[in-house]
């Protein structure tokens, strides 16, 4: 904070009222400008999102509940087929933890399009793989389409906030 006397030493200001006016205007216009940067370096964001997707696939394929949950936001909305929406990371943990005790998924995710705008990235693509069951040798092929919404938190971390998918009939 600069003392008003310093402003008064500037020939432009003759009274303290003028100084107060200037400081108020400066604060007002600085506040309006709110210079949060628009992110234009999407290549770095794309790399980050690729890593998140790869980690997600690894988590699913190793049925590692915590690895899968790591990249979901606390307010994740998971919209799986045949299910009511699952909202929140804890609710999702309760859903997938027992599931991962009995299933053996092996998937690949192939993004077909990613749109990034500042703090939101939306990706759609395909999931292909197989689904087995613990204690069984048989597997079935699985094919899905998906949309992932990623959002960048105020701390700069990208997280998956929305996850929806459905089947592709064989």
């Amino acid at each position, binding site marked *: 904070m600069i003392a008003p006397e310093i402003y008064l030493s500037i020939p432009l200001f003759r009274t303290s009222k003028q100084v107060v006016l200037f400081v108020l205007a400066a604060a007002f216009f600085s506040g309006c400008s*709110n*210079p949060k940067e628009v992110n234009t370096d999407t290549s770095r964001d794309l790399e980050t999102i690729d890593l998140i997707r790869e980690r997600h696939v690894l988590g699913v394929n190793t049925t590692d509940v915590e690895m899968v949950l790591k990249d979901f936001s606390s307010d994740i*909305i998971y919209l799986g087929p*045949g299910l009511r929406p699952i909202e929140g990371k804890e609710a999702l943990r309760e859903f997938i933890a027992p599931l991962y005790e009995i299933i053996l998924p092996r998937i690949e995710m192939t993004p077909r399009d990613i749109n990034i*705008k500042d703090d939101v990235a939306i990706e759609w693509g395909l999931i292909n793989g197989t689904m087995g069951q613990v204690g069984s040798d048989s597997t079935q092929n699985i094919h899905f389409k998906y949309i992932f919404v990623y959002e960048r938190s105020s701390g700069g971390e990208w997280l998956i906030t929305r996850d*929806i998918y*459905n089947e592709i009939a064989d």
Partner: protein
Amino acid sequence: MKPLISLLAAYAILFSACSNNNQPFPEQIEIEKEKIKQADITWGNAAKSKNLQEFLSLYTDNQIPVTMPPNNPSIKGKENIRNFYQPMFSMENLTVEFYPETIEISKSGDLGYVIGVYQTKIQDSTGNIINEDKGKYINIWKKQNDGSWKCPADIFNSDLSE
């Protein structure tokens, strides 16, 4: 006082110019969210009224749109989307309703999405419901150069287990 006014004016112009290179004001974001909601409602109403032309008009022109219905591959391009939905839009005994619930938008104000729920019913000639489905959807919305919002991708699935 005149130099002070000039200085304030210069200050205002400088910071206004700077702010134009950043995000829209919160009020503008709210306006855009409302536009997304209205676009999504129009999309749902077009489906409800079986107005295929209007339904298709809400998909992007400057980007190949994709719709991802369950139990089907992704359907890309307006003509393919038209061909896919045409039989459904021709079913007189089918009612379809969409309800947008959550609208989210990027800070830049030009990319958003809607999470909503849908309901479909098929009735027989006596009005009895012979098939019913409930589910959820995500519609992606992108702001166009003319300020309108259009959908480059949508997906939905049923809440009901098969």
